Every structure is written in structure tokens, then in C-alpha cells.
């Protein structure tokens, strides 16, 4: 086989990654060249959201356990990298109670982001092993309770996070290019894990954990690896996000943000990376359109009151509608592949039997 054929064969068997990456790069280049500054911002935000969603997907999609906790790891990554990269003078002014050792700390942005996600991964590694024993409703609620613990700590520990007040002055670093590179890296990482032997084990435990355990898979360990990796990815996304948004408070890492992430992953389909990409795209577009509608209603003063929460309202309805029509999400549990598109009809008939 020539190198040409071999690389074609490789591209075909891994066409999911290629398919996800090429449109993202093309869209990125087009937006960068021709887009307005608003569009550049939206696309950058889209890429950052995609990073977070992929972080969640690596655990939730592969293990089948719904996780509310990941937005907490996004927060850990954001705070850790923000504290590391913000100039001491800004921190001394903005966070009056901060530990002196933390105030003096400053390293360049990129290492700060990388260290931030390592902090998130270490926390995940320290707390999550026993939690991986729990499945179903108990597992979901435990992760949910842990998110609340995270939130309480973030809002109360004002020596580190500035408490419930805004943490500001994080240097701006995330441009469209940075976010896009981050998102592409995440896609490759998520895909690599999914196809790796550990990923296969986690997915086996998702489909039937007793059968998986019976074939010698250590379910808890497999889930644990997926969880720590996904926390690392969520932390990385958080760091990139922090250097895009530059000021934030613990509110940004709680229920309403988790709802946005969940709606992206559920509408697209939690089981696949293609689903995460499609879901993030659909939800980002829908939210931007709704936000514009909401803003123009408020600016036109046709109503006697301010319209609040319309975006979330419509997103909730959209989410329930998608779940009723396609409970597996738009894409479903399988990855999109070039070869699969051709036989799609046939496949669906089979699966309906």
C-alpha cells in the first residue's frame, strides 16, 4: 500500500475527526477574514463552549452517567489560571483578602492555563474515585451535591476567589485562533479517548455494566480515568474561557451555565463527538438569535415591561421537543462517518426492528 492509499484509508476510518475539524477551520478562517467583530466574538465563544461540551462529553457520553459537576471543574480551571496569570497589582486591589503568597504569583498566560487544568484534574482525581461506584439516580444526585459543595467553597473562600464578588483583571489572551486551536485539540483528544481501549471499556460499562464487569472490565477504574480526563479538559476550557471573558464570579459556574452545557450536549446527542459539535452549533445559533430578539423587543419599548428569560424559556422548550422526537439527540449515539451516511436509511430500519 502506498503512503497515499494508507493515509486515505486512515482518513476514511477516522473520518469523524476530519469531518468535524475541516468545517470548524473553514468557518474560523471565513469569520476571521470577513466577519464583523460581533461575529468573531460569537465564534470565539462558540469554540470555548465546544471545549467545555467536549470535556463533559468525554465522561458523560462514554460512561452514560449524567454529570452536573463538570461546570465546577470549568470554574476551578478558570480561577486557578486566572489567579496565576493576573498581575499582582490588580489582584492586590481587586481581591483584598487574598493570601499574600497567591498575590505575588504571576506566570505567563499559557502555562497558567495549563497549570489551571492540572489543578482541576488533581481535584477530580482526589475526590472522584469512590463516586464512580455509584450509578443511575444516586450517582447523578451525588455529583449534583458535589457541584453545590464546589459552589459554596467558591462563594465563601474569599482569600482565593474573592467570594461572591467579581474576580476581575484577568489578562485577555483568548483570540479566535487560540479558541479554535483549543477546540480542535479537544476534538482530537476526545476522539482519541473514545477509540482507545480504555474508552471502549467505559463505553461497554455504559451499555451494560454487569456484562462489562463480567468480562473482566474494572468499571470503577475505567470510569475514573474518563472522569479525570474530562475534568482536565473542562479545566482547560475554563482557563481559556477566563482569559476570554476576563472577569467572572462563582455564579458563572452553577446551574444556569450547566443547563446551557447540558442543552448543548443533549440536543446534539451525548453519545458521540459529532453530537457535541452539532449540539454546540445549534444551541449557540439559537441562543444568539433569541438574545437578539429579546434585546430588540426590549429596545423597541413595545411592551410595558422588560422581557427577561425568554432565551432560557425557548431553550427549555426546544430541549424537551428534541428529547421527545429524538431522545438520543440530533446525531444519536453513533459518530457521523462518511461511509455511514450512505447506508443511513438501511441502518435505521434495522435498529427499529
Amino acid at each position, binding site marked *: 500500500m502506498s503512503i497515499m492509499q494508507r493515509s486515505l484509508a486512515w482518513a476514511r476510518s477516522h473520518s469523524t475527526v476530519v469531518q468535524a475539524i475541516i468545517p470548524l477551520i473553514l468557518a474560523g478562517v471565513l469569520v476571521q477574514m470577513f466577519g464583523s467583530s460581533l461575529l468573531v466574538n460569537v465564534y470565539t465563544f462558540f469554540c470555548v463552549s465546544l471545549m467545555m461540551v467536549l470535556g463533559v462529553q468525554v465522561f458523560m457520553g462514554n460512561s452514560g452517567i449524567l454529570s452536573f459537576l463538570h461546570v465546577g471543574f470549568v470554574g476551578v480551571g478558570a480561577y486557578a489560571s486566572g489567579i496565576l496569570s493576573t498581575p499582582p497589582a490588580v489582584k492586590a486591589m481587586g481581591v483584598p483578602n487574598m493570601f499574600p503568597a497567591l498575590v505575588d504569583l504571576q506566570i505567563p498566560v499559557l502555562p497558567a492555563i495549563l497549570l489551571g487544568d492540572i489543578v482541576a484534574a488533581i481535584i477530580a482525581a482526589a475526590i472522584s474515585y469512590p*463516586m464512580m461506584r455509584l450509578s443511575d439516580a444516586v450517582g447523578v*444526585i*451525588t455529583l449534583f451535591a458535589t457541584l453545590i459543595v464546589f459552589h459554596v467553597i467558591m462563594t465563601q473562600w474569599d482569600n482565593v476567589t474573592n467570594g461572591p464578588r467579581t474576580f476581575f483583571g484577568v489578562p485577555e489572551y483568548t483570540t479566535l485562533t487560540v479558541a479554535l486551536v483549543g477546540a480542535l485539540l479537544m476534538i482530537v483528544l476526545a476522539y482519541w479517548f473514545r477509540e482507545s481501549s480504555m474508552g471502549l471499556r467505559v463505553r461497554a460499562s455504559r451499555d451494560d455494566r454487569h456484562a462489562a464487569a463480567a468480562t473482566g472490565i474494572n468499571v470503577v477504574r475505567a470510569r475514573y480515568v474518563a472522569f479525570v480526563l474530562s475534568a482536565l479538559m473542562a479545566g482547560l476550557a475554563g482557563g481559556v474561557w477566563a482569559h476570554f471573558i476576563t472577569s467572572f464570579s462563582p455564579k458563572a459556574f452553577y446551574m444556569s451555565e450547566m443547563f446551557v452545557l447540558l442543552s448543548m450536549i443533549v440536543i446534539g446527542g451525548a453519545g458521540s463527538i459529532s453530537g457535541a459539535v452539532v449540539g454546540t452549533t445549534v444551541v449557540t445559533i439559537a441562543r444568539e438569535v433569541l438574545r437578539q430578539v429579546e434585546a430588540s423587543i426590549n429596545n423597541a419599548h413595545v411592551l410595558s415591561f422588560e*422581557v427577561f428569560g425568554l432565551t432560557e*424559556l425557548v431553550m427549555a422548550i426546544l430541549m*424537551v421537543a428534541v428529547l421527545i422526537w429524538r431522545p438520543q439527540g440530533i446525531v444519536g449515539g453513533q459518530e457521523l462517518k462518511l461511509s455511514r451516511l450512505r447506508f443511513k436509511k438501511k441502518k435505521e430500519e434495522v435498529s427499529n426492528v
Partner: protein
Amino acid sequence: MNLEFLINTLSLGSLYALLAVGLVLVYGILKLVNFAYGEYLMVAGYAIYLSAILGAPWWATLIIAVVASMLVSFFTEIAAFRPVRTKSMDALLVTSFAVSIFLQNIVLLTISPRARAVPLPDFFSKTVVISGATLPLRNLLVIGTTAVVLVLLSFLMKKTVLGMAMRAAADKFTTTRLMGVPANFVISAAFLISGFLAGVAGIFWVGRSGSVDPLTGAAPLLIAFIATVMGGMNSPIGAVVGGFVYGLLFNILSIALPASMISYRDAFMFAIVVLFLLFRPEGIIRRGYTEERVG
């Protein structure tokens, strides 16, 4: 242990038990952890607020609150949960999360993002003195109401055909349907009772702060979650036990934690519960573990 501590713990525990039982009734049958449950309490609060504006007397506002919460519970089941009932458990969970966000934002959109004062009858804020201990009358009322409601509920579950059908459905739903019990009817009944309990608990919940806002539902939802998980997800008795244990734990932490740590109380609370679950994932009350879902 003095009387004040005892009564406070009992009243807190009663309120939490009410919350937890409402959640567990639906969980038993549908295996649905209902994230929209907290919003049923919020609806009760807003029902009191709106009906009081319209000039209803206090007893009518309370009845309207309970009815409103039952209706919302009933209709969310028909509109959202019924179509996804046969799908995966995650689909059901996420649906309930979406319903919760939907209800919050409807209130945000139509009433106000800001808190509204809820007028409650005077005796809610009165205190009584029993053998030297000053107690809010409200706390005694919660204990009494919970006792009555729980007795009625256990009568319903144990002695009536509906209750028997619901208990059977919680054990083996498919078999119950084969015995000729209509699935939709049992599930609707469970949601109505769940809404009733949420309504009653909602009155007392709102009564503690005297105001209601779109996010009122979050805190009671969490309490109900943790209490049910701790007590055991598979039986109402577990939920009651969990509610009282949670109330006790809360009061002990409130006293035992030093002042500088008190703002971390919730974190301690949930950390204790998570640790407890790691050693005993099935909760305090162990019962035949059923994983079967409605199909």
C-alpha cells in the same frame, strides 16, 4: 438536649420529610428524579401572592396554593414527562431539568425577577412559650400538619385500591399493568399527590422567609434530593427518615461549627452525605432494589 432544640429539629425534620416524600412518590414509579419539584413549591408561593392581591381571605390563599401546585405538577407530567417516559433515564432527567428552567423563566417573564412579599396569616409569625422555651408557632404547626398529612398518606397507600396500585407499580410496573392497572392513571395520581405535598410544604417554606422569587425552588429541591438519597430512594418511609436525619444534621452543624466556618455549612452537609453514600449507596432504609423502569 433542651426543648427548644428538640422542637426546632422536629419541625425542620417534618418540613424536610414532607419535601422528600413528595419527591420519592414519583421516583418510586417513574424512576424519575424530578428536578422540577422545587418549582412546584415556588408555584405555591406565587399562588398565595397572586390570590392575596385579588383579595382572597387567608384560608382561601392557602387552598389555592395547594391546588395550583397540584395542577402544575399534573400538567407538567402530561405535557413533558409522558412523551419521554419510555425513553432513557437521562432523557427523563434532562426533561425535568428543562421543565424546571421553563417554570422559573415563565415566572421571571410574567411576574418579576425580583422577590415578592407573600402575605401569610398572623399566626405564622406568632411565638408561644412552652416551659420556658420560646418557639415560633409556625414550627409547631409544621409538626402537626406533617403528622396529619403523613397519617393520611399512609392510610391512602395501605388501605385504598389506588394506594395499593401505586405501591405495586413502584415494585414491578410491567406486572402491575398486566394486572389491569392503567399506567397513565397511576402516574397522574402520583404526580397529583406529589404536587399536593409540594404545595403544603411550599406554604411553610415560603412562610419562613415571607417572600418568593423565581429561584425559591432550588433550596428545597436540594434538601429533598439529599434527604431521599440518604433515607433510601425506594420507599416513602426512607424519605421520611432521611428528612428527619437531614434536619437533625443541619441543626447539629449549625451549633457545632465555629462562627468562621458557618458559611461553609452547606458544603459540610453535602460532603457528609456524599461520604455516607459511598459506604451505603442504598440509603438508611434498605429495601428490595428494583431497577426496572416504565417501558
